[in-house]
Structure formats: C-alpha cells, structure tokens
C-alpha cells in the first residue's frame, strides 16, 4: 500500500488571501510564526533578496541562506485604499507601502493603528509580524 504524499502548502497562510501555497521558500512562514521577517542571501555570490528567492539569477546557485530583516527602512511611498478587491473588504481601509532598506526594499502594509496624517514619505519605519483576524499571517510597517 502506497502512502499518500504530504503536500507542503505552508505558504497558504501568507496574507489575508494567499494566491500561492507551495513554494521552495515555505520556511518564510515558520519564521513569521516565530515573529521574524526573513530574506534570503545567495551563499555563492552574496546577493541579498527580499522577497526571498530560492534561486539566484546572478550566478544560478540555489544554495541560499536566510537572514533576518532588522533595523530601519525609509518609507518610499504608500497609498490608502478605500475600495478593495474581492476577499479584502473586511480589511478596509488599509495602506499598502514600500520601505527602502538600501540593499533591498520591502512591499507590505502600514500598521493599521497609524493614522494617515502621521505618515510622511521618508520617515523611518520597521517591519513587524502581524497576525490577521482570520488567523493568517503577514507583516506591517510600524513606527520606530
């Protein structure tokens, strides 16, 4: 009798609605559960990736290691949504934003407790793990 192969679909926990479930960087979810936002780095040529990648396009190596996103990034730009795509209605209103860490950038949301009049381009922010009401996980940008 053959055993049913278990599918590693951890990535379905990412975001309000996840559109992918199986990826070689599924460990990203385990790190989120431990309150860590992690990127990957190519062990052969040293280039850092966020979002994490399983493969390096510079040297074609798939030998990668994880590193924790720490410190501060600068807010490049953002937008506050008053209208949402299907599946995200209960999150409204929310801000999507881009944070610049120098070597890499991070796309995510601004923490929902920061009012829009306190948001300024260029301000320093940090990435923190966020548990969504529906049990899903993502990360948000919070005040330093």
């Amino acid at each position, binding site marked *: 009798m053959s055993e049913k192969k278990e599918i590693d679909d951890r*990535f379905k926990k*990412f*975001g*309000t*609605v*996840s*559109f*992918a479930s199986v*990826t070689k960087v599924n460990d990203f979810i385990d790190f989120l559960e431990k309150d860590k936002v992690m990127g990957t780095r190519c062990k052969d040529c040293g280039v850092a990736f*966020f*979002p994490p990648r399983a493969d390096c396009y510079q040297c074609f190596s798939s030998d990668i290691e994880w590193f924790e996103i720490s410190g501060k990034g600068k807010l*490049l*730009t*953002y*937008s*506050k*949504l*008053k*209208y*949402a*795509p*299907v*599946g*995200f*209605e209960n*999150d409204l209103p*929310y801000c*999507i*934003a*881009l944070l610049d860490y120098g070597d*890499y*950038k*991070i*796309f*995510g*949301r601004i923490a929902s407790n920061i009012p*829009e009049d306190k948001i300024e*381009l260029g301000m320093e922010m940090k990435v923190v793990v966020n548990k969504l009401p529906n049990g899903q996980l*993502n990360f948000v940008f919070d005040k330093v």
Partner: protein
Amino acid sequence: MGKVAIIGVGQSAFVRGYPGSIRELAFVGFKGAMQDAQVSVKDIDASIICSAPEYDKQRSPSGVFAEYFGLIPQPTCYLESLCSSTSMGLRMAYSLVKSGLHDIVAVVGFQKMSEISSAESQERMGRGADIQWESPFGTMMPAYYAMFARAHMEKYGTTLDDLALIRVKAATYGQINEKALFRKPVAVEMFSDPDHFMSGPVSSPLRVGDCCANADGSSCIIVANEEKAMALCKKPVWILGLGAASASVNMTGRDLFTGLAVARDASQQAYKMAGVTPKDIDVAEVHDCFTVSEIMAYEDLGFVKPGEGKELIRSKETYKEGSIPVNVDGGLLSKGHPIGATGGSQIRTIVLELRNEAGEMQVKKPEIGLVHNIGGVGLYGVVTILGR
C-alpha cells in the same frame, strides 16, 4: 527587406455590458479594419489575437475567433502582455511581415470585462502583479498607480488639481469621440465637490475621476509588407519605430517611482529606430489609465523633463491646438479601457490622424505620431512610432 505598413484599422464602440459574446464583440473591430483595408479574409495570412486572460471563460480564444472570422486554415495564436497586448501584437506582426514569413497579418484585440463585477476585476488586475508576495496584501491597479502619484507629487510638486486637469482634457475630446464610453464634460471643481462622484476616494491620493473605467470593446490592425501596402492601400501608414521593455513585477525591484522605466526604455528604442526625437512627434496617444499616468508619460517620452509634466497640462500644450497634442480621442479616461483592445484603439487614432481622417479630432497635418501603451504597473512598456 522593405517597409511595413498599417493598411487598415477598426474598433468597436467601447461600452458597458456589450450585448453579445466575445467572438461577436471581436468581430466588430475586425470587420471595421477589413472594410477599411478593403481586403478579404483570403488576403490575411495569419492572425494574432490579443487580450488579458481571465475576464471571460474562453481559453485560447484565437481558434474561436479564426473560425468566426473565416480565417481558417491560416495560422493564429494568442498573445498577452496585459494592457499593452495589442501593441505587443503589432510588434509581433511587424516581425512576421518583415521576416518575409507572411505578407498580411491581422492583429485583433478584445476584452469583455462586464462578465464579472468591478471588485472581481480589481482582483484579476491585482493578480497581474506579484501574486506570491504582493497580492496577499490586497493590491489593485489604482493603489499601485496611487503610490506613483504620491511619489510624483512629493518630489515635483504636482498637485491634485494638475491631475484633475488631465481628466478635463480627456473629457473635452471624449465628447467628440463617438466610440468613447464617457462623453460628458468634466470640470476641475467636480474633484473638490464632496457630493460629486468624481471626488470619491479610491486609493489615496487618487479619486474616482483619476481612474479610467472598465469597458467592453475590440480593435483590429491590418499589417502588410511594402509591396502589398502599395498595391492595396491609398494611404498606408508606415511603422517607423518600435520599442518594448519590461520591469520588475514586484515593486521591490524598482528604482523609479516618479515615472515608468519601461516607457523611458521603450521610447528611446523607438526614437532611435525611427531616427526621430521627441520634438518630431506631431500627435501622441499615451496610456492614461490614471491621470498621473499621462503626466508621467509626458516626462518618460521626453516631451518635457522629469517633473515638468504639470507645466504641459497647465499651459494646455497637449490640447489639439498645442505644440504636442496628446490623447485627442479622449484617452483611456474617456474611452474606457477594455484592456486587450486599448492598444489597437490608440494605434487606430494615430493612423486616422496621419491619414487626415480623424474628423473633429483631427490635428493639423501631422507627419509623425507616437503610441505609448503600458501593461500592468509599468511592467510592460511598448512604444510605436508611425509616419505617413
């Protein structure tokens, strides 16, 4: 090898809720272009069918259309690069003709967006971005372009009123374009009137009036080699320059948020191939999916320096009588944006302008025209330069 020409153009009216199937909708644009070119289906050596997927249920629409159009047994295929699909289709048709593989190729664009709700179509469009790392945050097209608008306003002092002025210009010409969806006049004041729908917030800083609307529509371009064009067509319009580029789908891979790198790259290629500069362009169609997109296009295409786009609209230089008329057919903002049909409609307008057949929208004796067609959030950029 000789030159490559456009010998026929057609488009359907862009509407809400087209009362027919996708093959019937696409046939409207195809028939228009075939009658314009005065050729028969036997003259068409191949067809390229363009749209963005998942707005209707048909998989591989090329075979269905080839059958409905009477283009069997000629080769056909489906091509997509989101909102720039038909311009990319024209680029492929150019290569097929230039290589000598085919004499005449039909490029057909279509989109029937009314089969799904507006929120569903935002979800589809959002999935034209990075579904693994961005869509789970609840992204949609207006929100992405709003991020560019905010960066542009912050860096260059572009104002909300400047954005409104783009919509006012679009509405000026939408009123005289019988193919346009939105045909009413627009005033800047509507954007500050809380009771007017134009001022409604969508994704800050963009308002309802800053966004183009979904629509159903089709378009078609007939492309021919020099010999066929000279034999069949009284006013061939020549393809002088082609440029195309791509950018990182995930915003984390971008360096520019006050313009679209793909438009800068693609336009430089097209100018070089055509042997012209931005000053030589007499009339242009740009991808104004949002008001800010048109201001960025002025700058990305080199009509003005980065940051000076607002001056061009304030001084009305992009109106029909100005130094560089842009979107004198009402643009996406007035015509509506049936994704896969949009590029073909832009190309049609420039072809009609160059043939002096644009009616009320006609600018004064243009020699060279440009089409700027963008797919996704500056993900794909296609620039085409046409001449008489």
